[in-house]
């Protein structure tokens, strides 16, 4: 199989609570795969395990055939699997540009001592990070907020900044946890375009999202979780017609799944 990321039999228990139970699926290179499910279904837990912020109780995650479960998060990020956060997680007191510049850490070609003494490589790195940050800022349409302190940004732009931080790490796989949450219709449409554009740059995208119309619109494939278990996997069309999925969502009478 030509999966870039393989999740096999992933299980996470918190005491008696089973947040993830024997989840397996593969992610193909360059696809947008969404993970959906009712609140508390275990989506964020799944993402945290993939990015190695949480160690699985059982099972494992492989990236390009290499086991990444159990590595520390910064090592997994270095390999190219990077997560964004469900909450708007940013460096609050830094400017938008500094947020993105610092996120280039993985691309640094010199160690801390190099930056301390301001070696040539370090200065070249700094310049390259700044250029790349400006490029990402323009790409995500944050140009007007470039020098704004991050905590002053409106909600929609905070999400964009979260994605920008993820992008700056130059990931192979980017995990986006509810990137459209709290956005109005227009903001969501714009954000969907951004996610598409990110994929067009060659990034494989895993997405957790409650906004069903957006999910159905953007995803190549969808994995559905309920009570920690995978109950379905397939194209948006297959998922919309899947009886298990319909039952799960009717059961919580939460959202329509966009039919």
């Amino acid at each position: 199989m030509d999966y870039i990321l393989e999740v096999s039999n992933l299980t996470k228990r918190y005491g008696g609570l089973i947040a993830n139970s024997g989840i397996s699926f593969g992610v193909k290179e360059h696809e947008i795969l969404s993970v959906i499910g009712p609140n508390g279904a275990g989506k964020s837990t799944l993402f945290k395990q993939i990015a190695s912020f949480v160690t699985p109780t059982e099972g494992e995650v492989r990236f390009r055939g290499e086991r990444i479960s159990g590595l520390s998060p910064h090592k997994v990020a270095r390999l190219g699997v990077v997560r964004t956060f469900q909450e708007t997680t940013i460096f609050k007191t830094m400017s938008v540009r500094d947020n993105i510049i610092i996120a280039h850490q993985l691309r640094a070609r010199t160690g801390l001592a190099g930056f301390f003494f301001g070696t040539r490589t370090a200065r070249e790195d700094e310049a390259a990070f700044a250029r790349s940050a400006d490029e990402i800022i323009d790409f995500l349409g944050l140009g007007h907020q470039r020098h704004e302190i991050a905590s002053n940004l409106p909600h929609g732009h905070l999400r964009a900044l979260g994605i920008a931080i993820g992008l700056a790490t130059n990931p192979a796989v980017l995990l986006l946890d509810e990137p459209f949450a709290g956005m109005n219709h227009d903001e969501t449409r714009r954000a969907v375009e951004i996610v598409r554009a990110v994929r067009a740059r060659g990034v494989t995208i895993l997405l957790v999202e409650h906004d069903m119309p957006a999910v159905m619109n953007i995803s190549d494939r969808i994995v559905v979780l309920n009570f920690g278990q995978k109950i379905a996997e397939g194209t948006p069309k297959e998922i919309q017609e899947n009886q298990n999925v319909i039952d799960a969502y009717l059961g919580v009478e939460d959202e329509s799944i966009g039919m």
Partner: protein
Amino acid sequence: MTNATKLLLAAACVLFLLVGVPALIAATGRNDLYYTLTSVALLSIISGGVWLTFYIGRINIGQGAFALLGGYVSAVLVTAYGISFWLTLPVAGLVCALASVLIGLPILRLRGVYFAMVTLTLTEVMRLLALAVPITNGAKGIVSIPLPGGVSLFGLTLIPDFATLENPRLAFYLASVVLMVLCFGALYRLVHSRIGHICLSLQQNEELASSIGVNIASIRVLAYAISSFLGGLGGAMFAAISQSIYPSSFTVADSVNFMLNCFLGGLHYVLGPILGTFALYFGWDLLFQTGVYQLLIFSSALIVLMLVLPNGLLSLRLPRKKGA
């Protein structure tokens, strides 16, 4: 301010400290001020370390432990092994850095009040160790430490033998100021390089920092080691000046003061600890006349200051930093 003007200003300040202050003291005959100013310089080095741990988001109330350790390392090496003080100075710093790596690896996982509480006990642990370990001579401490000897290179005297000087106070003052300038120069460079941004990213959100590939565990340990290195340097200098060191030379109260110095000067500014130490030291002395009310007035003034100026004294002068 451009970099050139900053550098010029810094050079002017250093010149004033090294030439202007001694000239003023000579003119006024206030020789006692040397000891006070030397203490401020050394205490601000020690506090500078605490400031750096604040910068990665850790409240460090244990710096007294490393000042004590540094003092003892230098004192033992000088008295028992006859090693030159100037060599023991960096060794004291390095021993403290090493000790802090061992201590830091487990405790730096803690955050907020938990880390603060653990560090609070460190000074007391170090005091008890100093009482118990044979080499430190228990409660009697190590006394009559010889003054620092000279250093010469190829027959050229770099540092004169302090015992032969007619005014060793001036020599200690100059040495302490030079050390302070070097330490804060290095801290300034650190904080204004990319490393400073990385430290700041830790302070603001460790999870996010590790998601962008920052090895948070090693950065934390590095910052703590540098912090303790500075504590050790300051402690060693103090032992040399007072020619003695006791288990009670640095107490929990000192550790708290090092932290207050940082608060007072401002946690956003590298030079904050210098100003904070200066203000706190002289403020405390000024209140001496008030007798039993000294501590009461002092504490109340501190509380008010922190409420009015949460970003420290330096926020008075410097405009709020805009992005970029």
